[in-house]
């Protein structure tokens, strides 16, 4: 993980590029345009939010990046590679809106999943699993089953599973949308602390203006029908951010700018 930390502490311009989307188009069934003309550059250490109303293509963008579907037109390039496909697909972590844990497996076995599917034995990665669980504060629950945990704790397990392989990119698809506001704020804080510790690169899909401003250094505001990027807003506030940032004038100013952009996105749609 030291490798990632050095990557992140480099000045912005020198950070290695993780992912580039060039003018990506996705059409379903030949007629439904889910996403149009999306371009995005992701550098190591970025925290990027995709914000927009339902149907704006943000989940489609995430599924394209995850390699779960192929773009109709345009290119998605990893690490500046020249290939067309998604060579780096195995090297990402994903957190869904639901915790998506295997109910029959213990917490540790759930976190072990990405390694297991790469043919590694549990014993050989026990250290990584313990480290990931301690990063999300669940080291004591390694042998618990998912049903014994609260919703927030299950989500932490899901996050631990996403980062255990130290992936180049972590995709989060509205991970905290189903949680109560207090748990959600707590997890937002923890996520930023986690990012400060391990310097992960995150693309975060959300409906929430407040969540996106608090977490991201860039917010991609998207509009629906057809799904497209409307505006990219840089959040000009240094990390680490804590509860004090939530009540600061800077935070309020940013939420106002982002809210206006979102209103424009909804207005154009409606």
């Amino acid at each position, binding site marked *: 993980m030291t490798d990632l930390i050095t990557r992140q502490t480099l000045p912005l311009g020198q950070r290695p590029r993780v992912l580039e989307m060039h003018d990506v188009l996705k059409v379903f069934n030949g007629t439904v345009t889910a996403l149009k003309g999306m371009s995005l550059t992701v550098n190591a250490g970025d925290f990027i939010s995709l914000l927009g109303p339902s149907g704006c293509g943000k989940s489609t963008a995430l*599924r394209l990046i*995850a*390699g*779960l579907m192929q773009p109709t037109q345009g290119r998605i390039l990893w690490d500046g590679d020249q290939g067309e496909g998604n060579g780096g*697909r*195995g090297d*990402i972590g*994903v957190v*869904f809106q*639901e915790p*998506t844990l*295997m*109910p*029959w*497996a213990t917490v540790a076995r759930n976190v072990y*999943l*990405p390694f*297991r*599917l*790469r043919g590694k034995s549990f014993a050989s990665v026990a250290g990584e699993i313990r480290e990931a669980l301690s990063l999300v504060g669940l080291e004591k629950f390694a042998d*618990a*089953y*998912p*049903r*014994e*945990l*609260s919703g927030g*704790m299950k989500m932490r397990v899901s996050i631990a599973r996403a980062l255990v392989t130290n992936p180049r990119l972590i995709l989060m698809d509205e991970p905290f949308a189903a949680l109560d506001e207090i748990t959600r704020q707590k997890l937002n804080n923890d996520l930023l602390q986690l990012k400060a510790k391990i310097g992960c690169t995150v693309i975060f899909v959300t409906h929430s203006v407040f969540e996106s401003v608090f977490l991201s250094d860039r917010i991609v505001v998207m509009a629906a029908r057809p799904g497209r990027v409307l505006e990219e807003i840089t959040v000009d506030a240094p990390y680490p951010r804590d509860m004090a940032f939530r009540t600061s004038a800077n935070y309020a100013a940013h939420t106002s700018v982002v809210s206006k952009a979102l209103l424009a996105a909804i207005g154009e749609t409606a």
Partner: protein
Amino acid sequence: MTMQDRSSAEAVYDAEEARRARAIRIESVARWLLPLLVVVATVLGWQWLVTANDIPHYILPGPFRVWEQLVTDWPMLRDSLFVTLKITVMALGVAVVGGVLLAILFDQSRFAELIFYPYAVILQVTPIVSIAPLIFIYVKEPTARVLICAWIVAFFPLLSNTTLGLKSTDHNLRDLFTIYGASRWQRLIHLQLPSALPYFLGGLRIAGGLALIGAIVAEYVVGTGGAGSGLAFRILEASYRLNIPRMFAALLLIGVVGVAIYAATALLSHLMLRRWHESAIRREG
């Protein structure tokens, strides 16, 4: 309900909670006591009916007469019991292997499912009594005849339940497996089979009862040519001789076998699911 919010406060009961606690205590006793009382009452009522009306034992024997017959005929009935039990367990075993393997085949190949599923349904909906005489003609080995009949009856719930279970995986988990580059085999072993386990065990409970029914019915239909020394054959034989107490004794044993099979499959299901599945979790609070 979770391990972190269980408080260590001392017990305080208001009237409503006390009532609830009492109701739970009463139910925990009644759950065992009531069925037991009903069984005892039935046996006593039956005995009273027989003695009070002077019913001869070749029409309706009393329960104690049946018990005597069971003890007297035990060596013979025990052998028959083992035959029936063996066939039932074997049929269930073959049904489990066949049903699960077919379900996996259907899951892995959509075309295999399209081609073979109609046959599975036809086998299922055709009454075994009508197929059994044909099996009697084509298969010479007596045990094999009965086994085939019992298998035909038992395998379908395993096939259909396991097929459903293999398809009922969480779609996000499926995506996750794709993202991590899981092979077909890894997906089957680590995702689909565990997801299908509760469905399979549900099918097993049904199939256990059906295997017994299949074994008995098959013996009635095909086992009469000296093939069967199972319990069904004993019932037929006793009916020819008007030995009604022995019929009841054999019937009692069949009932016991049925209950034992159900209990065994329910216990297996509980042991395999109790750590994680909703069906096996007792609700708290």
